[in-house]
């Protein structure tokens, strides 16, 4: 089989495929590993942290919750690698530190990539996909696309195609003493504003909807706290203006740009002048000619529509890894997205995907272990308190125990919660951490018994510790129909 892409999504998938003994080739048009981290973020530091010191040792699985940037590994020697590359000045790795870390993981874990191999076209022959590449043809029944969101996207605003995209931004010094208009108020727009804040004469950020901040959304979908400085500048009436307005037109003239905007709250259009305009309007997927073969996508990011196991909803055998897995929406409780857009979310998707491909396409059975009934409650509460998958992929991935007549309680591993909910014939329990709109975190327990699914939300713990007698009683009560949870004495 074939994996396309040598960013963290492709590397992580290849790592787990190799561990399971699935023969595969990784193709990449780049000449080294790292994907987007070879170029971005522009202003050098990531927005995801790695804490050198944490409550869990660096080689433990539980450390992953505090280290959002390392690829995950079975062997201790290859775990938590990012911290070793950081110089201690920040807990957000520099872009270069991240790039070195990914190259180091590739070497240590012996992830083999065919670099400089460009995927050119695709056709179907029976149940196989034939990829034409700069390195000849590859025939495969199973294809994993891990090409990221790398195609600059511009909404159809008249004149916007004449201005540089975030991907083409110049060195910060080019904006010295300039009036800069930034289209877009998400992380990339605020990252630019923050980067040129010491240099620009004035910065205007505009888009139709109000900026949403991570401190309010409680997810990485919001603008991160480290980019909030330009917003504070706006509120304190310094040199930054943040506008909620539709951008109607951008017209270039000899001295710069004239921009016409219309406030979202109503009222007349306004005209603004700027020396520079930047489109911080995001990126789209690069899916080659797969849409012509029937691949369905949605949203202006052109995300592939997917099953809970990240298979194309319409092209069997085509799977996705890396940030493209955000197209498998899960059940989006309280409107909250998964963390699949980011490495700390999609690295777990990759492990599950590799196992799913090994079992579904290569006849490899990954052994599962059984639990004694008395161990179910303590085990699930331990997972709920510290499992990185459940804390980082909340209401998206779940620890699943099934009840199988001839085997008893089987630990099915960490699986997509959506898969458990859709599996009408599976008796058992799935547990995950849920986050609600008020920002509270608590265990969510889904029990299926006699084909009937029930939901149980356990109590909030202010200390994020669910290994308490009260939680044990609540969980045992939820598991009662399955007869697998003994209440504590």
């Amino acid at each position, binding site marked *: 089989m074939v994996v396309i892409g040598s960013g963290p999504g492709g590397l992580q998938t290849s790592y787990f495929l190799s561990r399971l003994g699935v023969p595969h080739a990784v193709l990449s048009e780049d000449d080294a590993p790292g994907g987007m981290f070879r170029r971005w973020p522009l202003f050098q530091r990531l927005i995801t942290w790695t804490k050198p010191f944490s409550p869990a040792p660096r080689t433990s699985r539980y450390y992953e919750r505090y280290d959002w940037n390392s690829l995950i590994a079975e062997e201790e020697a290859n775990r938590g690698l990012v911290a070793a590359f950081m110089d201690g000045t920040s807990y957000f790795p520099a872009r270069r530190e991240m790039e070195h870390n990914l190259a180091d993981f590739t070497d240590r874990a012996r992830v083999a990539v065919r670099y400089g191999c460009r995927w050119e076209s695709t056709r179907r022959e029976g149940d196989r996909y034939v990829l034409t590449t700069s390195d000849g043809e590859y025939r495969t029944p199973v294809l994993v696309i891990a090409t990221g969101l790398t195609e600059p996207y511009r*909404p*159809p605003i008249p004149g916007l195609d004449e201005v540089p995209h975030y991907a083409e931004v110049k060195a910060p010094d080019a904006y010295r003493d300039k009036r800069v208009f930034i289209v877009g108020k998400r992380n990339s727009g605020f990252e630019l504003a923050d980067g040129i804040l010491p240099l620009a004469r004035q910065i205007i950020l505009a*888009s*139709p*909807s109000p900026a949403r901040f991570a401190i309010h959304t409680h997810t990485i979908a919001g603008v991160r706290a480290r980019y909030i400085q330009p917003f504070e500048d706006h509120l304190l009436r310094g040199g930054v203006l943040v506008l*909620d307005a*539709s951008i109607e037109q951008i017209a270039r003239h000899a001295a710069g740009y004239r921009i016409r905007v*219309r*406030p*979202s709250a*109503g009222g007349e259009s306004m005209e603004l002048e700027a020396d520079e305009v930047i489109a911080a309007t995001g990126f789209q997927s690069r899916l080659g000619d797969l*849409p*012509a073969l*029937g*691949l*369905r*996508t*949605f*949203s*202006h990011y*052109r995300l592939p*529509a997917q099953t809970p196991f990240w298979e194309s*909803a*319409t092209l069997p055998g085509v799977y996705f890894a890396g940030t493209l897995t955000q197209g498998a*929406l899960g*059940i*989006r*409780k*309280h*409107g*909250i*997205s998964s963390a699949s857009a980011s490495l700390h979310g999609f690295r777990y998707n990759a492990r599950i995907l590799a196992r799913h491909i090994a079992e579904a396409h290569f006849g490899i059975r990954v052994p599962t272990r059984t639990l004694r009934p008395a161990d179910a409650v303590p085990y699930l509460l331990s997972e709920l308190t510290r499992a990185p998958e459940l804390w980082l992929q909340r*209401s998206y991935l779940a620890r699943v125990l099934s009840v199988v007549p001839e085997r008893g309680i089987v630990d099915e591993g960490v699986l997509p919660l959506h898969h458990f*909910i*859709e599996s009408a014939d599976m008796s058992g329990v799935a547990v995950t951490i*849920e986050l*609600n*709109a008020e920002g509270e975190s608590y265990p969510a327990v889904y029990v299926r018994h006699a084909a009937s*699914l*029930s*939901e149980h*939300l356990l109590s909030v713990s202010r200390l994020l510790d669910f290994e308490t007698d009260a939680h044990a009683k609540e969980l045992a009560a939820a598991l009662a129909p399955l007869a697998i949870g003994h209440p504590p004495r």
Partner: protein
Amino acid sequence: MSDNGGPTREEIIDRLAGFALFGDLSPTELRALAHSFEEAYFNAGQVVLRRGISGSGLYVIVEGRASVRVDGAELNRLMPGDFFGEIAILLDKPPSADVVAETELRCLVLGGSQLEQILIAHPRLLYRMLQAVARKLRDTMPWRS
């Protein structure tokens, strides 16, 4: 956009303008509002809204058809412009029926907590939603109309 990518954001905004729910909003208001929604795609047969699972959102059908079902029995069919999930949000209770995609389905989705803010900011939208809820009520209790 390609044939398989569905309508563009601009086309979605145009279509929303034609739906009763959004009929009173100005193009600028509609554009700002459309950015609050996420897009979602479902294959035929997929469950969109599930009875008994809390924390669900508001869905507006952009393309395709869906079926409202309880224990497999169809109660209602939904078309482009129809929306569902609002009662679960307003009452803060899990949905009392399943909504299943009958065809390929493209929806806009809004998280429950955002609905209140949007309804308060747009009283005409609130009124239109109230009308739709009243219509559903009349349809389920015909003797009271």
